[in-house]
Structure formats: C-alpha cells, structure tokens
C-alpha cells in the first residue's frame, strides 16, 4: 500500500495567495489515488510570506503552484509504487 500524506495550509495568508487552487488539485488527485493519498489540513506552517504552502510526507513545500503540487504528488506516488513493486517482487 502506497501512502502519501498531503497537508495544505488553510491559513488566511496562504488562502490569499491561492491556497484554494491547491485544494482543488488535491481533491482531484484524491479521486484518482483514493486511499493512497491521505489529506490533512494545517492552520499555519509558519512560512506565511512564502505561501501558499503544503506539507508533503513531512516535507515543507513553499510557494507552490497547482501544477507543481500535482507533479510532486504524482512523482512521489510513482516512486513509492516502484519501491513497493521491487520489495514485493523479490
């Protein structure tokens, strides 16, 4: 099972800088990836001047655009899938 945890900052500052657009991407990917994608919400990630910010598997990503986030999540998912495949294949 591949698990990716994504946590969008819902703070007002990130919201003003387009956090909602990232939320839309996450919703779309949630439909595609189902249980593989765990969605969390943060009230502030303390990097307000650089927003919109997202936590991805414990790593902080600042100033994200919807395209960047989508690519990051999908790339992460592909890598994890590959890893899983390798371990189960042995």
């Amino acid at each position: 099972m591949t698990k990716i945890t994504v946590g969008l900052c819902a703070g007002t500052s990130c919201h003003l800088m387009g956090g909602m657009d990232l939320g839309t991407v996450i919703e779309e990917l949630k439909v595609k990836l189902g249980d593989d994608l765990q969605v969390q919400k943060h009230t502030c990630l303390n990097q307000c001047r650089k927003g919109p910010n997202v936590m991805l598997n414990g790593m902080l990503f600042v100033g994200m655009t919807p395209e960047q986030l989508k690519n990051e999540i999908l790339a992460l998912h592909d890598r994890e899938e590959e890893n899983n495949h390798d371990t189960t294949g042995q």
Partner: protein
Amino acid sequence: MTLQVNEVTKIRRKVMTETARLHWNGNLIKEIDQLPERLTAEHEHRYRCCEFKEKAIYAERIKLAMGLSLAPEHAKKRLSTLARHSLTHSHEKNRSQVEVIDIACDGCPIDKYFITNACRNCLGHNCQQACRRGAITIVGNQAYIDQSKCVECGMCRKACKYGAILEVHRPCEAACPVNAVIADQNRKAIIDNGKCTDCGNCMVSCPFGAISDHSQLLKIIDWLKGEEKTVAMVAPAIIGQMGQKEKLGPLFQALKQLGFDRVEEVSFGADLVALGESEEFANRVPVKDPYMLSSCCPAFVKFVKIHRPGQAEYLSTMVSPMVAMAKTLREDLPLAKIVFIGPCVAKKREAMESKVVDGVLTFEELAALFVAADINLATMEEAQEEASKASKDGQGFAAAGGVRAAMVNGIKRFADADFRGGSAQGLEECLAQLKLLEKSEASFNFLEGMACSGGCLGGPGALVDNRQTKRFLDVRGSQLECQNSGDNRLAIEKLKDLGHSLHKSSKK
C-alpha cells in the same frame, strides 16, 4: 471562467498586504520608500526588462494601494511624501475608480489579424480571395495585411487552410462591455471615464496586471486604530470567501479582532429592498410604467444611465441593500464609520456618493488586511455565529437570479400584481434584455440586472470561484430560520420606520 490565482493577482495582493502591514504596524512613512526594492528582491521571478522597471511598477501599485491616483502630479514624488498626503487628505472625489498603470501596460497589439510564419505562400491564396477590401498582398514570400484597409471582418482567417492567420484581442478591450477601454497613440490602454461603469472587468482580465482600482485600506486602518466606533457591513457574497465554507462565525470573530465594534450582514438591507421594491413594482407596473429595472447593482445602474438613458426612468427608486443597511445603522450610530465589505469595485463610487457609507473594502483587500494584522481565520474554526437577522431571500441577492427570486416571494403580498421576472448577468446580457424590453418583445416585466457574471459572487473582488461559493450560499440559506423577506418581521417593521428615506428621489 474558473477563478484562479495567477502571478499578477499574487503581486497585487502582496503589494496590498505589505502596504497595509506597514501602516498597521505604524511604520508606513518610515519604511514605504524601501518597499518597492524589498518586493523586487523578495520576488524571485523577473517579469520586466530590468529591476528598475519592476521597482517603478511596484511604486505605482503601492500608490494605488494607498488610495492615490496615478495623476502626473504624483509622478515624481517620494512614496513617503505621498503616504503623508494620503493620510491627511480626503480622497479626490471626481476621479476615476479604475486606473491604468501606464508603465505596466505592455501596449498589446491593436491590429486584430496577423499573418504568422505558418503562411506557406500557397498557390490558392484563399486569404486574398476572401478579403473584400483588397487588404491582402503578397510581400516577399508571405501574405501581408495592409492594416489601413483591413476592416477586421475575419474572412481571411476563416479562408486560410493552414490556420496561419491569427486573431489577437487586447484582453482589456475584450473584457469591457461598453468599449470604455481604448488604446492611445502609443497603444497603451486608457479608460474613457465618460463610458466606464466601474464594473472592474478589465482589472481582472489584464495579464500584465496593468489595471487596478484605488484601495481605501489606509483610512480604514486609521479608523480601526482610532477612537471612532466602526461598523463592518458584509455583503452576502462573503460566504466562503475566506476559506471557511458556509460558516460565518470565524469571519465575524476575525472582524472584531481587527477592531470593528459591530459586524452586520447587508442581507438584512436586501430584505428591506426586496420588500420595498416589490411594493414599488405593484404600484408602478403596469399602470404607470410598462416594466421596472432593479437598482441594487451600481455598475448596472450606471450602465443604464450612461448607455441606455431612455430606459433610466424605469429603474427602481429603491436604494441598494448596502445603502439601506447603512441607513438602518445610522439611526443608532450617527457618527460611526461604516465600512462596506463586498466583492465589488463599483460600490466604492456608490458609497462615496451615498454619503452614508464611509468606506469600502473588497474581499481581497479584507484578506490582505487580515494577513497584515496577523489574523488567521483557520485558527477560529470553532467560533459560533449569531442568528442572522436576514432571510434566505435577502442572502440570495448575492447570486445571479437572487433578486428576481426574492421579488417573486415579495410580490405575493399583492394579490393582483402581474409580475414576470427576468434576470441578466454580465452587461452584454443586460443590454440584450434591455433592448427586448424597449421593443416590448420581452416575456418579463421586471429585469434584475447584474454587471458581473454569476452576480455579486462573481465580482472582481471575490477570492473564490462563484460556483463553489454558490453551493455554500445555498447550504447556509437552507439553514436560515427565516426563508422569505415577507416573513422577516424585523425587516417589515424597519421598512415602516424608514420607508421614504429608502427611495432615491426622497430628500429625507
């Protein structure tokens, strides 16, 4: 059109936030001169030819954020000098609400049709055949359009088998439904104030972010920090704008934390308007007038007055929900500073002319102010909201079709009234429906005119796509205790008290 936050929007919001932050912290005069440099350094991407131009554009954006016009007399002055001027002088009354930042305007091409390198100089020369003005010649190895002969009919583009002819629009001109945005001799955009309805469409459509309106952030910060009582009146379109879905509790708490002594919903004013306007309709149509037009959208009202003067007499005489609400509040708070918070640019002028509303913030400006004051609504999710004084009908004014729906319910009090409601969103659609009314070809005798597509929820100062916010509006509407304006006892009583003063013709 999906509302998405692009780089231009981010820059505008950043400038607003940082300007507001300086004033909120009392450092405006001391630090404003360094702000363009700081913003240029903070922003990694370069969009313009050089750093100097970026700084110069930031300086212009800061002027607008400080509520100053970009008039030539402000051109060579330091930002700190201008900031001092802005803080001590009331804003100039008769100037335009929306302005072009000349140095940010890229002077997009005026010529509508271009022949690109995809032109193969084929034997058919369909483009030449299609052009009835003889504007196309073959120069070198390519077709060429003589722009002095071209009438922009587009036949050549349709005729070319290679799709080699490109149709180009200036986004600002394409966005303006009344042709108020035109090009000067340097191809820079200018706004014809005699035609402009302040709708704000051009502002959100310019990909260079070269069109913007004046913000009132500085004076509102002064009121919030000062001794005066302050009231925030929020438009019903505020639902969902700050990211808390249909909940208004966090927003109300945040506004109080910002320093507003009272927070009120304009949807109560909309109830008053729904009641008053349906009564007016029953009295006017069809006996005195063949039809009536709604008067709550200031850009639509201005559009009718300037561009359809023959139909202006059919506008409802009711004031807008914003003004109705302010008049209700003025009874108890004669000296308070009343600030309207909405998605609308045109309300800024309407408020100034109304003399009962002191200031206006868009949702975008409000969010910038929250950030400037370090207020985070996401941490207030638990805040409870008080019971609303408004009905679902009143709240519904925020969405296209909402005024008509409220009128349908309001008119039920007049048994023999013949009410057939129509609605139009976007000024193009408004124009089409007005023409139908003029020719007596319309199936309706009341027209709700909204300048923005989607109604107020789709306004230029909105932060969230109106299809999302419409859902939140419906959810909250269904939860409200009172569904129809006609059942809102408090509104009925208020209307009796204020009655005449809510009509524009009255002197009271």
